[in-house]
Protein backbone atom coordinates (compact mmCIF):
# COMPACT_ATOMS: atom_id res chain seq x y z
CA UNK A 1 0.00 0.00 0.00
CA UNK A 2 2.71 2.48 1.04
CA UNK A 3 4.78 1.44 -1.99
CA UNK A 4 1.82 2.09 -4.30
CA UNK A 5 1.19 5.51 -2.75
CA UNK A 6 4.85 6.46 -3.14
CA UNK A 7 4.75 5.30 -6.77
CA UNK A 8 1.59 7.41 -7.34
CA UNK A 9 3.29 10.40 -5.74
CA UNK A 10 6.43 10.03 -7.89
CA UNK A 11 4.46 9.45 -11.11
CA UNK A 12 2.19 12.46 -10.66
CA UNK A 13 5.01 14.78 -9.53
CA UNK A 14 6.70 13.80 -12.80
CA UNK A 15 3.50 14.43 -14.79
CA UNK A 16 3.07 17.82 -13.09
CA UNK A 17 6.68 18.84 -13.59
CA UNK A 18 6.96 17.83 -17.25
CA UNK A 19 3.38 18.70 -18.19
CA UNK A 20 4.22 21.30 -20.80
CA UNK A 21 1.65 22.32 -23.41
CA UNK A 22 -1.50 21.80 -21.34
CA UNK A 23 -4.13 19.02 -21.20
CA UNK A 24 -3.80 17.02 -24.40
CA UNK A 25 -0.01 17.15 -24.46
CA UNK A 26 0.00 15.85 -20.89
CA UNK A 27 -2.05 12.84 -21.97
CA UNK A 28 0.89 11.03 -23.57
CA UNK A 29 2.89 11.61 -20.38
CA UNK A 30 0.02 10.35 -18.20
CA UNK A 31 -0.42 7.37 -20.54
CA UNK A 32 3.29 6.61 -20.36
CA UNK A 33 3.25 6.61 -16.53
CA UNK A 34 -0.13 5.01 -15.88
CA UNK A 35 -0.53 2.46 -18.69
CA UNK A 36 2.99 1.69 -19.98
CA UNK A 37 5.23 1.92 -16.89
CA UNK A 38 2.95 1.03 -13.99
CA UNK A 39 0.22 -0.99 -15.71
CA UNK A 40 -2.44 0.56 -13.45
CA UNK A 41 -4.95 0.79 -16.33
CA UNK A 42 -5.52 -0.67 -19.81
CA UNK A 43 -5.63 1.66 -22.81
CA UNK A 44 -9.45 1.57 -23.04
CA UNK A 45 -9.88 2.27 -19.31
CA UNK A 46 -7.53 5.22 -19.87
CA UNK A 47 -9.69 6.48 -22.77
CA UNK A 48 -12.80 6.18 -20.58
CA UNK A 49 -11.21 8.39 -17.94
CA UNK A 50 -10.32 10.95 -20.60
CA UNK A 51 -13.97 10.86 -21.72
CA UNK A 52 -15.21 11.36 -18.15
CA UNK A 53 -12.69 14.18 -17.63
CA UNK A 54 -14.01 15.90 -20.76
CA UNK A 55 -17.56 15.84 -19.44
CA UNK A 56 -16.83 17.00 -15.89
CA UNK A 57 -15.53 20.47 -15.00
CA UNK A 58 -11.85 21.10 -14.40
CA UNK A 59 -8.54 20.43 -16.15
CA UNK A 60 -7.99 16.93 -17.58
CA UNK A 61 -4.66 16.49 -15.79
CA UNK A 62 -6.24 17.06 -12.37
CA UNK A 63 -9.38 15.03 -13.13
CA UNK A 64 -7.32 12.08 -14.30
CA UNK A 65 -5.10 12.32 -11.21
CA UNK A 66 -8.10 12.16 -8.87
CA UNK A 67 -9.69 9.30 -10.82
CA UNK A 68 -6.59 7.17 -11.32
CA UNK A 69 -5.48 7.79 -7.73
CA UNK A 70 -8.83 6.45 -6.55
CA UNK A 71 -8.67 3.41 -8.87
CA UNK A 72 -5.16 2.53 -7.72
CA UNK A 73 -5.29 3.23 -3.96
CA UNK A 74 -8.74 4.48 -2.89
CA UNK A 75 -9.53 7.93 -1.48
CA UNK A 76 -6.05 8.34 0.00
CA UNK A 77 -4.63 7.58 -3.45
CA UNK A 78 -6.81 10.23 -5.09
CA UNK A 79 -5.63 12.84 -2.55
CA UNK A 80 -1.96 11.92 -3.05
CA UNK A 81 -2.16 12.00 -6.87
CA UNK A 82 -4.12 15.27 -6.97
CA UNK A 83 -1.76 17.07 -4.58
CA UNK A 84 1.27 15.67 -6.45
CA UNK A 85 0.08 16.85 -9.87
CA UNK A 86 -0.54 20.39 -8.52
CA UNK A 87 2.67 20.84 -6.50
CA UNK A 88 5.15 21.48 -9.35
CA UNK A 89 2.83 24.03 -11.03
CA UNK A 90 2.23 25.74 -7.67
CA UNK A 91 5.92 26.14 -6.80
CA UNK A 92 7.14 26.93 -10.32
CA UNK A 93 4.42 29.49 -11.00
CA UNK A 94 5.08 31.25 -7.68
CA UNK A 95 8.76 31.53 -8.64
CA UNK A 96 7.85 32.75 -12.12
CA UNK A 97 5.38 35.30 -10.74
CA UNK A 98 8.04 36.53 -8.36
CA UNK A 99 10.54 37.13 -11.16
CA UNK A 100 7.87 37.88 -13.75
CA UNK A 101 9.12 41.17 -15.16
CA UNK A 102 12.69 40.03 -15.58
CA UNK A 103 11.70 36.73 -17.23
CA UNK A 104 9.07 37.64 -19.80
CA UNK A 105 11.41 39.05 -22.46
CA UNK A 106 14.40 36.79 -21.73
CA UNK A 107 15.73 35.21 -24.93
CA UNK A 108 16.82 31.97 -23.20
CA UNK A 109 13.31 31.42 -21.83
CA UNK A 110 11.92 32.09 -25.31
CA UNK A 111 14.47 29.66 -26.76
CA UNK A 112 13.49 26.90 -24.33
CA UNK A 113 9.77 27.45 -24.96
CA UNK A 114 10.31 27.53 -28.74
CA UNK A 115 12.42 24.36 -28.62
CA UNK A 116 9.75 22.46 -26.74
CA UNK A 117 6.88 23.55 -29.00
CA UNK A 118 7.31 20.90 -31.76
CA UNK A 119 7.77 18.24 -29.06
CA UNK A 120 4.47 19.27 -27.48
CA UNK A 121 2.70 18.88 -30.85
CA UNK A 122 4.33 15.45 -31.21
CA UNK A 123 3.17 14.50 -27.70
CA UNK A 124 -0.44 15.29 -28.61
CA UNK A 125 -0.11 13.19 -31.78
CA UNK A 126 1.41 10.30 -29.82
CA UNK A 127 -1.50 10.39 -27.36
CA UNK A 128 -3.86 9.92 -30.31
CA UNK A 129 -1.73 7.11 -31.81
CA UNK A 130 -1.52 5.34 -28.44
CA UNK A 131 -5.30 5.32 -28.13
CA UNK A 132 -5.96 4.27 -31.76
CA UNK A 133 -3.31 1.51 -31.84
CA UNK A 134 -2.69 0.36 -28.25
CA UNK A 135 0.16 -2.06 -27.52
CA UNK A 136 -2.09 -4.74 -26.04
CA UNK A 137 -4.97 -6.31 -28.01
CA UNK A 138 -7.43 -6.19 -25.15
CA UNK A 139 -8.78 -2.75 -24.37
CA UNK A 140 -8.62 -1.12 -27.81
CA UNK A 141 -10.65 2.05 -28.37
CA UNK A 142 -11.31 1.28 -32.06
CA UNK A 143 -13.18 -2.00 -32.40
CA UNK A 144 -14.87 -1.89 -35.84
CA UNK A 145 -15.80 0.33 -38.81
CA UNK A 146 -18.41 2.12 -36.69
CA UNK A 147 -15.59 3.37 -34.47
CA UNK A 148 -13.90 4.95 -37.47
CA UNK A 149 -17.19 6.47 -38.65
CA UNK A 150 -17.77 8.08 -35.24
CA UNK A 151 -14.12 9.23 -35.25
CA UNK A 152 -14.48 10.85 -38.69
CA UNK A 153 -17.69 12.69 -37.84
CA UNK A 154 -16.24 13.87 -34.51
CA UNK A 155 -13.07 15.24 -36.20
CA UNK A 156 -15.21 17.22 -38.66
CA UNK A 157 -17.48 18.59 -35.92
CA UNK A 158 -14.52 19.49 -33.75
CA UNK A 159 -12.86 21.34 -36.66
CA UNK A 160 -16.07 23.37 -36.89
CA UNK A 161 -15.70 24.33 -33.24
CA UNK A 162 -18.72 22.35 -32.01
CA UNK A 163 -18.73 22.14 -28.20
CA UNK A 164 -16.69 19.03 -27.18
CA UNK A 165 -19.27 18.02 -24.55
CA UNK A 166 -21.95 17.88 -27.27
CA UNK A 167 -19.67 15.75 -29.46
CA UNK A 168 -19.08 13.24 -26.66
CA UNK A 169 -22.76 13.10 -25.70
CA UNK A 170 -23.63 12.56 -29.38
CA UNK A 171 -21.08 9.75 -29.61
CA UNK A 172 -22.52 8.14 -26.46
CA UNK A 173 -25.99 8.17 -28.03
CA UNK A 174 -24.53 6.66 -31.22
CA UNK A 175 -22.84 3.98 -29.10
CA UNK A 176 -26.10 3.08 -27.35
CA UNK A 177 -27.90 2.79 -30.72
CA UNK A 178 -25.12 0.84 -32.48
CA UNK A 179 -23.91 -1.48 -29.72
CA UNK A 180 -26.76 -1.47 -27.23
CA UNK A 181 -29.92 -2.16 -29.23
Amino acid at each position, binding site marked *: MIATLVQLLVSYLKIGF*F*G*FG*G*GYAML*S*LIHSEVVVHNGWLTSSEFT*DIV*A*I*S*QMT*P*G*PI*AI*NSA*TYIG*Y*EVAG*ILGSVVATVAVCLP*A*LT*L*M*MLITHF*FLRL*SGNRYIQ*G*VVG*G*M*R*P*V*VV*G*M*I*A*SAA*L*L*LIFPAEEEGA*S*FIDLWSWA*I*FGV*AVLLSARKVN*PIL*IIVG*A*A*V*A*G*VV*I*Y*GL
Partner: protein
Amino acid sequence: MRELFTILWSFLKIGAFTFGGGYAMIPLIEYEVVARRRWLTEREFCDLLTIAQAAPGPISLNTAVFVGYKRRSYGGALAAVLGTVLPSFFIILVVAIFFDQMRHNHWVDAAFRGMRPAVVALIVAPIVGLAKGMHWALIGVAAATALTVWYFGLSPVWFLIGGAACGLVWAARRGEEVER
Protein backbone atom coordinates in the same frame (compact mmCIF):
# COMPACT_ATOMS: atom_id res chain seq x y z
CA MET B 1 -8.36 37.66 5.31
CA ARG B 2 -11.55 38.68 3.50
CA GLU B 3 -9.73 38.90 0.20
CA LEU B 4 -8.47 35.32 0.67
CA PHE B 5 -12.10 34.16 0.80
CA THR B 6 -12.94 36.25 -2.26
CA ILE B 7 -10.04 34.61 -4.13
CA LEU B 8 -11.15 31.15 -2.98
CA TRP B 9 -14.76 31.85 -3.97
CA SER B 10 -13.86 33.26 -7.41
CA PHE B 11 -11.75 30.24 -8.30
CA LEU B 12 -14.30 27.80 -6.86
CA LYS B 13 -16.79 29.23 -9.36
CA ILE B 14 -14.26 28.96 -12.19
CA GLY B 15 -13.36 25.40 -11.16
CA ALA B 16 -16.96 24.26 -10.93
CA PHE B 17 -18.24 25.68 -14.21
CA THR B 18 -15.47 25.18 -16.74
CA PHE B 19 -15.97 22.04 -18.77
CA GLY B 20 -13.38 20.74 -21.19
CA GLY B 21 -10.42 22.17 -19.27
CA GLY B 22 -7.59 24.43 -20.44
CA TYR B 23 -8.55 26.77 -23.23
CA ALA B 24 -12.27 26.57 -22.50
CA MET B 25 -11.60 28.04 -19.05
CA ILE B 26 -9.79 31.17 -20.25
CA PRO B 27 -12.80 33.39 -21.10
CA LEU B 28 -14.38 32.64 -17.72
CA ILE B 29 -11.16 33.37 -15.84
CA GLU B 30 -10.73 36.58 -17.83
CA TYR B 31 -14.26 37.73 -16.96
CA GLU B 32 -13.83 37.02 -13.25
CA VAL B 33 -10.27 38.31 -12.83
CA VAL B 34 -10.17 41.29 -15.23
CA ALA B 35 -13.73 42.57 -15.72
CA ARG B 36 -15.37 41.70 -12.40
CA ARG B 37 -12.67 41.87 -9.70
CA ARG B 38 -10.13 44.08 -11.51
CA TRP B 39 -7.26 42.06 -10.05
CA LEU B 40 -5.35 42.34 -13.34
CA THR B 41 -5.40 44.70 -16.31
CA GLU B 42 -6.18 43.40 -19.81
CA ARG B 43 -2.47 43.63 -20.69
CA GLU B 44 -1.31 41.82 -17.57
CA PHE B 45 -3.79 39.05 -18.35
CA CYS B 46 -2.35 38.64 -21.88
CA ASP B 47 1.20 38.40 -20.51
CA LEU B 48 -0.03 35.96 -17.90
CA LEU B 49 -1.50 33.67 -20.59
CA THR B 50 1.85 33.49 -22.36
CA ILE B 51 3.61 32.55 -19.13
CA ALA B 52 0.88 30.10 -18.07
CA GLN B 53 1.18 28.28 -21.40
CA ALA B 54 4.96 28.18 -21.28
CA ALA B 55 5.12 26.81 -17.73
CA PRO B 56 4.40 23.12 -17.04
CA GLY B 57 1.01 22.09 -15.65
CA PRO B 58 -2.61 22.88 -16.55
CA ILE B 59 -3.09 26.44 -17.82
CA SER B 60 -6.02 27.14 -15.48
CA LEU B 61 -3.98 26.06 -12.46
CA ASN B 62 -1.01 28.23 -13.51
CA THR B 63 -3.32 31.21 -14.00
CA ALA B 64 -4.82 30.67 -10.55
CA VAL B 65 -1.40 30.57 -8.87
CA PHE B 66 -0.34 33.76 -10.63
CA VAL B 67 -3.44 35.74 -9.68
CA GLY B 68 -3.55 34.43 -6.09
CA TYR B 69 0.16 35.03 -5.48
CA LYS B 70 0.03 38.51 -6.96
CA ARG B 71 -2.86 39.53 -4.69
CA ARG B 72 -2.00 37.84 -1.41
CA SER B 73 1.38 36.03 -1.68
CA TYR B 74 1.53 32.36 -0.55
CA GLY B 75 -1.89 32.35 1.10
CA GLY B 76 -3.48 33.80 -2.02
CA ALA B 77 -1.80 31.24 -4.28
CA LEU B 78 -2.99 28.41 -2.03
CA ALA B 79 -6.56 29.77 -1.88
CA ALA B 80 -6.68 30.08 -5.69
CA VAL B 81 -5.33 26.54 -6.20
CA LEU B 82 -7.80 25.06 -3.69
CA GLY B 83 -10.62 26.86 -5.48
CA THR B 84 -9.58 25.48 -8.88
CA VAL B 85 -9.00 21.92 -7.69
CA LEU B 86 -11.70 21.21 -5.07
CA PRO B 87 -14.80 21.15 -7.36
CA SER B 88 -13.28 18.73 -9.87
CA PHE B 89 -11.75 16.66 -7.06
CA PHE B 90 -15.10 15.98 -5.40
CA ILE B 91 -17.03 15.53 -8.66
CA ILE B 92 -14.48 13.04 -10.01
CA LEU B 93 -14.34 11.18 -6.70
CA VAL B 94 -18.12 10.70 -6.74
CA VAL B 95 -18.01 9.63 -10.40
CA ALA B 96 -15.17 7.18 -9.69
CA ILE B 97 -17.01 5.60 -6.76
CA PHE B 98 -20.27 5.12 -8.71
CA PHE B 99 -18.78 4.41 -12.12
CA ASP B 100 -17.02 1.32 -10.75
CA GLN B 101 -20.43 -0.17 -9.97
CA MET B 102 -22.08 0.56 -13.33
CA ARG B 103 -19.00 -0.21 -15.41
CA HIS B 104 -20.40 -3.53 -16.64
CA ASN B 105 -23.94 -2.36 -17.28
CA HIS B 106 -24.93 -3.21 -20.89
CA TRP B 107 -26.03 0.35 -21.81
CA VAL B 108 -23.14 2.12 -20.12
CA ASP B 109 -20.71 -0.18 -21.90
CA ALA B 110 -22.36 0.54 -25.28
CA ALA B 111 -22.25 4.31 -24.65
CA PHE B 112 -18.55 4.17 -23.82
CA ARG B 113 -17.78 2.14 -26.96
CA GLY B 114 -19.27 5.03 -28.92
CA MET B 115 -17.51 7.72 -26.87
CA ARG B 116 -13.94 6.35 -27.15
CA PRO B 117 -13.39 7.18 -30.86
CA ALA B 118 -14.91 10.64 -30.29
CA VAL B 119 -12.43 11.30 -27.47
CA VAL B 120 -9.55 10.39 -29.79
CA ALA B 121 -11.04 12.73 -32.41
CA LEU B 122 -11.01 15.62 -29.91
CA ILE B 123 -7.32 14.96 -29.32
CA VAL B 124 -6.52 14.77 -33.06
CA ALA B 125 -8.43 17.91 -34.10
CA PRO B 126 -6.11 20.62 -32.65
CA ILE B 127 -2.93 19.01 -34.09
CA VAL B 128 -3.53 20.39 -37.60
CA GLY B 129 -3.99 23.93 -36.29
CA LEU B 130 -0.86 23.70 -34.15
CA ALA B 131 1.30 22.29 -36.97
CA LYS B 132 0.10 24.91 -39.47
CA GLY B 133 2.73 27.58 -40.12
CA MET B 134 5.46 25.45 -38.53
CA HIS B 135 8.77 24.99 -40.39
CA TRP B 136 8.99 21.56 -42.08
CA ALA B 137 11.98 20.59 -39.92
CA LEU B 138 9.95 21.25 -36.76
CA ILE B 139 7.05 19.22 -38.15
CA GLY B 140 9.65 16.46 -38.63
CA VAL B 141 10.63 16.76 -34.95
CA ALA B 142 6.96 16.55 -33.96
CA ALA B 143 6.43 13.47 -36.14
CA ALA B 144 9.59 11.78 -34.82
CA THR B 145 8.48 12.44 -31.23
CA ALA B 146 4.99 11.07 -31.90
CA LEU B 147 6.24 7.89 -33.60
CA THR B 148 8.97 7.11 -31.06
CA VAL B 149 6.77 7.68 -28.02
CA TRP B 150 4.00 5.61 -29.57
CA TYR B 151 5.99 2.74 -31.11
CA PHE B 152 8.84 2.30 -28.63
CA GLY B 153 7.00 3.43 -25.50
CA LEU B 154 9.75 5.94 -24.72
CA SER B 155 8.80 8.61 -22.17
CA PRO B 156 8.15 12.01 -23.85
CA VAL B 157 10.19 13.63 -21.04
CA TRP B 158 13.44 12.93 -22.96
CA PHE B 159 12.16 14.78 -26.00
CA LEU B 160 11.08 17.77 -23.88
CA ILE B 161 14.56 17.96 -22.35
CA GLY B 162 16.15 17.60 -25.81
CA GLY B 163 13.89 20.29 -27.32
CA ALA B 164 14.59 22.67 -24.44
CA ALA B 165 18.37 22.10 -24.81
CA CYS B 166 18.25 22.77 -28.58
CA GLY B 167 16.22 25.93 -27.98
CA LEU B 168 18.74 27.09 -25.37
CA VAL B 169 21.72 26.53 -27.70
CA TRP B 170 19.88 28.30 -30.51
CA ALA B 171 19.08 31.28 -28.27
CA ALA B 172 22.71 31.50 -27.10
CA ARG B 173 24.09 31.44 -30.66
CA ARG B 174 21.60 34.01 -31.84
CA GLY B 175 22.63 36.17 -28.88
CA GLU B 176 26.28 36.02 -29.97
CA GLU B 177 25.32 37.07 -33.50
CA VAL B 178 23.36 40.01 -32.18
CA GLU B 179 26.32 41.13 -30.06
CA ARG B 180 28.62 40.96 -33.07
